[in-house]
């Protein structure tokens, strides 16, 4: 039996959920197809930070600011607790050199309207008394926030379902159909459970987007960038703000193939501490590397000495969808009419999910687009087409 939909979203992570939410809110008939279950990929193997200061001024920061505002809106409109907390974050400086760099970062951010407060040694200690006493200081960014990524994904999906979303979990996409004549627009999605006829497809499959894009006949430049997180036993109150070490941004922006580690510490509502972060290109292998766990533990104890006696209860590794220019791919692809991308967010998918959903909605409905839309449009890259693919 063939069903019909205005839009089929492929991928039930946070980005797919946000796309579905904004598309449903504008009255479209939307179906979401997820290979396993909601948030079964990267959206449950990550932290939940919504950061502004790590974004490069320009398109990236503009997206971040727009999305942060949407997150605040969503705390009202979603009517679900997804542990949103706007506690701000602290960028840690180990030595004086780091503090100088932090100072200029703070200045640059303030210049474009992001609040930032430089902390000296004692200022840092008064905000976070459990930090190592020999740290030079830091920068406090009061506008940053955090969510529980899994809960946020489920909250977006639930709200979308109330607006009419049809969710197909445990359903794999086998083929993407395109018309034979004319511009060869997409015409349907074939799944293990049947076929959905549609003229619009949104690929929000994160790191697995290429598997979907190949079905449509195109090759994407997305690569999996692996990250590890350690979870500690409950230490409620040990830190009051998410903490990031100064070297964090350089590990994000580095194109190095090998392992990069910088401390990220985030307290969950349950009282456990999430400790990251690592970045490495290691294919699609999601197994946990013991050496990486050790490297993160070493950084964590350096900054938070009282963690030394706290047990690590588990760990996980996730894959970030890396894009070559550190900007996501959001919007239509000229080569395949009706095929939209919402992917390539690397480690910023949680923060940027709402703006991604909003932009996809604007594109599909033909609404006025903000200037940033052009900068994240997928057509900034050249693509390899495989003409044989894209079933009829």
């Amino acid at each position: 039996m063939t069903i019909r939909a205005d839009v089929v979203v492929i991928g039930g992570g946070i980005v797919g959920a946000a796309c579905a939410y904004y598309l449903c809110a504008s009255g479209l008939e939307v179906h979401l197809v997820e290979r396993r279950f909601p948030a079964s990929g990267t959206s449950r193997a990550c932290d939940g930070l919504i950061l502004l200061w790590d974004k490069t001024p320009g398109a990236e920061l503009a997206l971040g600011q727009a999305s942060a505002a949407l997150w605040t809106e969503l705390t009202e409109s979603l009517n679900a607790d997804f542990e949103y907390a706007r506690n701000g974050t602290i960028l840690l400086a180990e030595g004086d050199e780091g503090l100088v760099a932090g100072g200029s970062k703070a200045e640059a951010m303030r210049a474009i309207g992001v609040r930032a407060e430089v902390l000296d040694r004692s200022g840092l200690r008064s905000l976070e008394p459990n930090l190592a006493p020999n740290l030079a200081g830091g920068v406090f960014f009061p506008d940053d926030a955090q969510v529980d990524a899994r809960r946020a994904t489920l909250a977006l999906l639930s709200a979308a379902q109330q607006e009419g979303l049809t969710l197909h979990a445990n359903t794999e996409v086998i083929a993407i159909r395109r018309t034979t004549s004319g511009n060869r627009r997409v015409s349907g999605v074939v799944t293990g459970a049947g076929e959905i006829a549609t003229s619009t497809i949104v690929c929000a499959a994160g790191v697995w987007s290429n598997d979907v894009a190949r079905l449509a006949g195109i090759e994407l430049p997305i690569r999996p960038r692996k990250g590890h997180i350690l979870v500690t036993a409950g230490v409620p109150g040990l830190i009051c703000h998410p903490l990031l070490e100064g070297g964090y941004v350089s590990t994000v922006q580095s194109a190095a193939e090998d392992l990069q580690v910088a401390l990220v510490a985030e307290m969950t509502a349950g009282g456990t501490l999430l400790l990251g972060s690592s970045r490495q290109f290691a294919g699609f292998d999601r197994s946990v590397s013991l050496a990486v766990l050790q490297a993160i533990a070493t950084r964590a104890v350096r900054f938070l000495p009282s963690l030394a006696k706290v047990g690590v209860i588990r760990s996980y590794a996730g894959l970030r969808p890396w894009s070559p220019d550190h900007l996501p791919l959001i919007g239509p692809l000229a080569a395949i009419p009706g095929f939209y991308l919402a992917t390539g967010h690397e480690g910023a998918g949680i923060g940027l999910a709402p703006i991604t959903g909003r932009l996809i909605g604007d594109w599909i409905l033909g609404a006025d687009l903000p200037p940033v839309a052009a900068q994240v449009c997928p057509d900034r890259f050249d693509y390899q087409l495989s003409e044989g693919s894209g079933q009829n």
Partner: protein
Amino acid sequence: VAATELAVVGAGPAGLAAAVTAARAGVHVTLVDEYPRPGGQYLKGTSSPVTATEKQGRALLRDLAELDVELRTETLVWGIEGLRLALHAPHSLDWLEARTLVLATGARELVIPFPGWTLPGVMTLGAAQILAKEHGIPAGRRVLLAGSGPLLLPVANELVRLGAEVVAVLEASHLGQWFRHAPATWGNWDRLREGWHYLSSLRQARVPYRLGRTVIRALGSPPAPAKGRAERRGELQAAVVARLDRQGHPVPGSEKTVDIDALCLGFGFLPNVELAQLAGCAHEFDTARGGWVPRVDERMETTVPDLFVAGETAGVGGAGSAMMEGRIAGLTVAQRLGYISESELARELTGLAKRYRRLRRFGAMLNTLFAPRPGLDATIADETPICRCEEVSAEEVRAAVARGVVELDALKTWTRVGQGACQGRTCGPVLARLIARETGRSVAEVGVFHARPPLKPVPLGDLALEMCE
């Protein structure tokens, strides 16, 4: 990096047998165990052995002391990469590079929860057994035992010996079809004698052994206000007992309340397969072996070459078959490393084959006969806490299932189950049963939680130590 020809993880009956057998053939063996002394749960304490199997186990401990086996006690295997074990002892980390591996990590108890099961005074049969055997302390003054399987009997006897009043032993199974399984008991005289010995001493002590009954609710005293924030939880005062129908559903109207101060529970054993999972061994679901077990060939080798499993890890079967499997694995390792020839190995294995098959058959019979019936999950009322670490109730689990969750792994996304300190070891199997019941799928289809390092909590300060490379 320390190196060894054979690393054995777990020094219970199976691990001891593997280590002793291989060492005797000349293999350099390192035996790793979390506890301060080898022996596992089975050979804990110093009480004189009752059964032939226990005597055999004690003999292995003596052999171990005489052989040149490197013993690493109080050592946790927290991760594995290839055949390299990541070890943690207090304030030290080490790699152990092994040419061959035998995982003999034992089993844990299954507890099917009901309202009140987290009250102080409620414990597992195993915990009651350790209290009794190691410390000479009975679980309480008026004790009720409930659950399923052979362990109920020795624990009840132990409690009687220590002077506790054992109100009753409730076996959930009806054992109604036992005669169908009678052929499997043939030849297992020692085990039958053991069972008979326990049953008759319970009868002498006038302890009733009731079939087809279980506890459906534990009642506590009202919570007492205490100093500080949290009020003290009430203590166990009574249990509500009900008759069960053939499918394990409590029969309405059959409830009786019994005053007690301790309740010991155990619904059989589940293999500890987390390390084997982490090592990448393929697993299969087999009720006759106690649930999820690594797939093995007749020489106990898993799908990962040179990696063997033995004992309860390979399938719940009791100490007798565990020692046999340890021996089979130990001999195969000795052959693999060139200490004995293939023909010697074949001869030894042929000699063991008949007895092993007999023990295995008996173990499978017990696992099938005492397997908790699906109806028992009906005792998991909505308010029952299922995940103790994260305080998730059965109601939340059922709500997630109603929203479309059909597998265990997905439930972790919808609720916080399995994310606490025990990593779902306790709640995972119960949750699998519950999802299966609510969705009409089989427990096997519902799947498992994935094991991740560290397998048990390791302090961050210790993780930050240099690994000796």
